């Protein structure tokens, strides 16, 4: 089975993340990395193709340097990569991103599309469902386990208070939770091999996209402002009375 995995390059959550004055992400402010959730998507795709055969294509939309993220996924073992890149795509919202990614996916053959359940920068968590709707496919979100039997996808999906067992027929869109799998580390051989694997770039013209970019986005940022950071309050060292001092603080704050 052939699998397309969406991978996004995001600011490293270990560094400080910033917005520019126009409300768009300041991509220079933090190190850019493959979103951890997407590396889990690549991992489960590799496991599924190791079991069932087929190839893994990783797909990203982002500026030039997002190629680094594709190379990382190729080094893990993905077979080829597609980079949707065009200056005219800058500032896209979720609806526009899903249109571009859906158009790119239509240039491929696949039995399954795997995404993360939520990007760590945008946190919208809506791109997977938008893609499924655009592609006319069934979808499962927040999977913690998945298996494929013939043309049937079975998954355990995290729900409030537990999980649900669900099935859908392939092709389908699957978004994974962080419980799906631990991503493998690329080894030296993988990193060398990644340099030679095919990487296709696609732009607005090739994909036939309209109404692209921030100015045409259905969602417009009106204003944005940083919040002052929290300040540290009182700190005491427990000498046997720490619990009582804490209780006294909570009582003074009328919290107990």
């Amino acid at each position, binding site marked *: 089975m052939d699998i397309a995995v969406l991978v996004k390059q995001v600011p490293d959550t270990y560094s400080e993340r910033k917005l520019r004055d126009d409300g768009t992400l300041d991509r220079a402010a933090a190190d850019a990395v493959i979103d951890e959730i997407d590396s889990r998507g690549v991992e489960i795709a590799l496991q599924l193709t190791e079991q069932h055969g087929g190839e893994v294509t990783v797909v990203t939309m982002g500026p030039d340097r997002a190629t680094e993220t594709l190379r990382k996924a190729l080094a893990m073992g993905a077979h080829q990569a597609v980079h949707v890149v065009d200056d005219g795509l800058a500032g896209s919202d979720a609806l526009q991103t899903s249109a571009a990614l859906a158009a790119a996916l239509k240039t491929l053959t696949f039995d399954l599309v795997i995404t993360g359940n939520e990007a760590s920068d945008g946190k919208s968590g809506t791109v997977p469902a938008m893609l*499924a709707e655009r592609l006319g496919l069934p979808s499962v979100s927040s999977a913690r386990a998945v298996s494929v039997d013939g043309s049937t996808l079975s998954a355990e999906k995290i729900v409030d208070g537990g999980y649900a067992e669900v099935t859908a027929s392939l092709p389908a869109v699957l978004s994974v939770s962080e419980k799906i799998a631990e991503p493998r580390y690329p080894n030296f051989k993988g990193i060398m091999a990644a340099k030679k694997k095919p990487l296709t770039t696609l732009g607005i013209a090739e994909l036939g996209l309209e109404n692209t970019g921030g100015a045409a986005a259905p969602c417009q940022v009106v204003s944005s402002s940083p919040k002052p950071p929290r300040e540290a309050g009182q700190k005491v060292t427990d000498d046997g009375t720490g619990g009582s001092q804490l209780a006294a603080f909570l009582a003074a704050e009328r919290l107990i």
Partner: protein
Amino acid sequence: MSEVLVLVEHAEGAVRTITGELLTAARRLGSPAAVVVGVPGTTDSLRADLTALGAEKIYAAESDDVGKYLVTPQVAALAAAAQGASPAAILLPNTVDGKDIGGRLAVRLGSGLIADAVDLDAEGVATQSIFGGSYTVQTKVTTPAPIVLLRQNAISAEPQAGAGEVTALEFSVDPATATTVTAVHVEPAGDRPELAGAQTVVSGGRGVGSAEQFAVVEDLADALGAAVGASRAAVDSGYYPQQFQVGQTGTTVSPQLYVALGISGAIQHRAGMQTSKTIVAVNKDPDAPIFEIADFGVVGDLFDVAPKLSEEVKARKA
């Protein structure tokens, strides 16, 4: 006045709290219209509550298919209601299902979507709190029928009775895009409040040391009437189930009081709790980053401090 559609969250014949919050936000923009998607009979059991919370109209989208399929019945029902009503906005809870329903609906209706809004004003401008609360962003949708996913517990419900007029709504699920639910395994929620909406949260981290020792966290939570949370390290170590994870990739909480026990305060944990009104922490390490954001910190062993605090809380209550 234009209708504002609200997807009703309900479970076991009862309306969930977020529904009241959504109806309150809807009233700022137009006439609140609750959309009930459920098996036949559901609307009858919810009608009184929805009316009291502010629904002027109640769409009854009932079918035996609901519950058999993931989200596509809700998408079909909301699309049908939107086609008839040309709503000023469509409001959904910012939950996993809400995102799936909203995402599909946005494409189907060509509507812009705002996820994880913490406020919504009469002009349809939504407020978002991003990067773990370090930025506030105001966003507006330029297309008709904007879809807004509202974070739970972000605005308070102000019930104000509506007319509660019930209208049946026809819809059908396209089998080509349907995902079938074959089994659901959920633990009963018990007496503790739901994590995302709780007024008080007591969380344990890797410092708690084992699943058994999480009883210390639970005891304090019960003394405070709080929900229990956990860090990702505690979840990964198998001390506590994943659904209780607080942080960037877990639940975002914003309670009146957050108690962190044996949690270092990594940036990804802080992202899910630093907008809490008051934060207190117990940690053995005086340099733990959690102290940078704690209003009151105790440097000490959580197994000494937490039980003493529980006792004091119980004593004050008695």
